[in-house]
């Protein structure tokens, strides 16, 4: 049987789908401008499909670990200080619709992320995970990420999440 999972690019036509996946599976809100900028050429994005239905999406960017990302809003800003050379890839958003989890779609998208990381000649993927999001944290740890000792205080504060702290997670590739 054909592999039910496939990946595809984001276009101006299915941007609405990407947005729908994020808004219906993530507790945080991305501003309209963030979606608009997703179509820029330098963006690293992929949609995940299960049996032809779009059910997952990931958006990445290159950063330097020296950047001081202390809250969600900074994390998803388009322009981080570009004088510092990037040395990692940062996961801005990563979502799989609930009924479609544990089918291997996330792993495919992570493979995509790893490949893109290598193409950019950097060797680290990093992200922030909400401390209460055990499902995500377990998933990342299972897939080779490690979490920092320290918790980042109030990372999700402006998003109004209860218990707004975040773990920083990293993986060497």
């Amino acid at each position, binding site marked *: 049987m054909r592999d*039910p999972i496939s990946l595809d690019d984001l276009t101006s036509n299915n941007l*609405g789908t990407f947005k729908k996946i994020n808004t*219906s599976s993530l507790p945080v809100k991305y501003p309209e401008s963030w979606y608009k900028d997703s179509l820029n050429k330098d963006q690293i994005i992929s949609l995940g499909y299960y*049996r032809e*239905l779009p059910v997952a999406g990931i958006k990445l960017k290159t950063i330097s670990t020296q950047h001081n990302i202390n809250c969600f809003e900074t994390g998803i800003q388009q322009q981080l200080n570009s004088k510092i050379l990037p040395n990692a890839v940062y996961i801005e958003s990563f979502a799989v619709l609930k009924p*479609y989890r544990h089918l291997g779609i996330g792993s495919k998208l992570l493979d995509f992320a790893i490949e893109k990381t290598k193409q950019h000649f950097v060797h680290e993927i990093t992200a922030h995970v909400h401390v209460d999001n055990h499902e995500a944290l377990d998933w990342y740890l299972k897939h080779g990420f490690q979490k920092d000792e320290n918790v980042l205080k109030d990372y999700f504060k402006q998003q109004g999440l209860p218990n707004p702290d975040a773990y920083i997670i990293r993986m060497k590739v």
Partner: protein
Amino acid sequence: MSKLIQKKKVGAPILTNKEDENFYEALKLYDQLQHKKALKLVTASLKKNSNHAACLALKGCLNYQLGNKSEAEAPILKAIGKEPRNHYVNHLAGMYYKLIDNYEEAAKWMKAAVDNGSPNTGIIRDLAYVQTQIRDYKNLVVTRQQFLEKQPGYRANWTSVAVAHHMNGDHQQAYTTLQKIEDIIREHLNEGDRYEQSECILYKIQLIGESGLVEKALDQLEKDEREIKDKLAFLEMKGRYLLMLNRKKEASVVYRQLLKRNPDNVQFYILLETSLESASKPVEIRLKLFDKLASFYPKSDPPKFVPLLFLPASHPEFKSRVREYLLSQLKRGFPATFVNLKPLYKNLAKRAIIFDIVNEFHNLELSQFDPTVAVWTKFFLAQHYLYVNDLEKAEESINEAIEHTPTLVELYILKARIIKHKGDYELASAIMEEGRELDLQDRFINSKSTKYLLRANKVDQAIDTISLFTKLDKDAANGLKDLHVMQANWVLVESAEAYVRIYKNYVKQLQALEAKDEHEEGDKNIEEEKEEILENIDMYMGLALKRYNAIVKNFKIFFQDQYDFHSYCPRRGTPRDYVETLKWEDKIHTTPIYIRVIKGLSGIMFEIYDDQVRKHNAQLKELLEEEDTKSKKKSNGKKKLKSPKSQLIKKKSKLVPLVELEKDDQDPFGSKALSDLQNNANGKIMDILLELAKTVSDEDPMLKTPWEIVINVYLNEGKYVLALQAIRSLEKVMTRRGSAKSRLVGEYVLKLDESINKDTQINSAIAQVVSKSIIAAFPEFTKDAPDAFLAIYCQ
């Protein structure tokens, strides 16, 4: 179009004077499309001799070609008056009327040219096209024959004669003609002629069959088998003829062959059953047949589905088979599973079984399958609930589905439909939009979204939406012009209906305001508000009229477009398709969308007519009252506007680019079309309407809407006898539809009676005659007991 001057000049004209010489010179230039030069010559000649008829006629055509259309007909009429037997004049007149699509006149003058000795063979051919266009088959036979005699070397000309005979109802002559050329040409056929040969043979056989000689048709078919390229048509005809001859066993062999070619055509299965006479046999035997067929064609749907149609719901096999059929589709994620099963839904018991299966599957088994199965199952359930009109449950199911997979476009389409059925067009449209935004390049939902926006009366937004898929000219505000070019009638009709709803809303506002006005006489703000509303009513009424008229025009074009086929099809050697096209064109106005158009137009026109009558009566009344008092008087209904406010003009000028249907549209809001109607003498509107309705009822007298229009027109005009006739025609339609004592008919009878009673000017003798005729036609009718009558006419 035939050239006026033929290359081989048969007896070149002897030039007697300068004007004639100039005329032939100008003709040559005309044929070379050198219109300006030709006009110069003609004008010069006419200066010397203003009575030169041929020059006058040519001038008319040249004026038309050069865009001076208003000065085209006059010189032609003058020329005809002077020399009605001059074949040049006749020819030019014929060409002119063809150019303006007046085929009757064109045929008349082209015929005159031929009869008056035009040496031009092209005109005969043109005459044939024009005669076909107006369906004058009797004369067409003569014309095609005439042309054949001039050029017997082309098969197309023989085929054309045959088609003319056929359409004229003379199958025998048509057949003879075809057979003759077939015998002549048989020895001389090239490889490239083989397809034409095949088509002509099939046409010939079809003619034999149509004239009732089925056995002969079958014989011929088998004799000519080797020459027939269209194997599908061959087999289908063979099967049909065998069935007609009651040679069922042989027919069954043919249908098995056809199934082998295309096992997905359900028609072949049904015809196979007919030829095997299995439909009347016990279901077990039929089941066996279909199981066998299913094993031959495991990938085809019909052998699995057809048994579900004939198995009774109580049969033990039904449940297991339908379960297997539908669950296998759900598990594979077929979006169309419900649509596939819908034919079974007419049977209540089957419907219940299907629902139980899906519901149980949904509640108990979903976890064993991948998540897409769940969403398609919920989708199915929502469709089921919508079908049985349980809108609450339908909404619940579709919400569950959207919650499960919010990225699936189909779900939003269905949810919008459910909400639409609940009557909330605004919300329905918003949901459709939500779905559309998921995939902007999905053309289907784009169209749906457009339609739903129009249903919510958001015309501009709708046009913007569909404009994503139209060709946009530079600096065009939207794709409306392209939608007209593409003849997107469904958009136009939905727009027109939206405009009608919008203006009716304004009418309601106006009435509310007028009710208020009673108490606050002469309030200035209210007067201004009223004026604006009146302006809006006129604007949207005009726009509705304009969109409707655009569709009427498109249908005219559809009809005109067949013109080229009168020459093209015979040349390509496709007489079977050509005949079918002609028959189709004969009925194009019965297309549902056209019925909607005449219905919508009649609504507007009756309203304008009523308004005219009201105004007329008010004027009379005013005249009478003016004698008594000279105080200010308000007339009933819509008054003529004072000069519209500058604001309104500004608002409208901004709207122009959004609503115009061609560049520099002279009447972007249809206000001229509207005021033309409004200022028309009373009867004229009814005439226009009558013609629209008659066009349709002539093509198919078994449609309801045209008769209703005709009845109302005649009632308005006080032509009661004709109204009664139309009511009887409507009765036939309703009876055919299974309601013998239709309520609709009953109500029109009462309306007719009431109109007669109300009519103060009616001749009492006529009133008596009509009343008697009513009772003759509807014996249950008595004047004093309308309720009793309606109690009988209640279906």
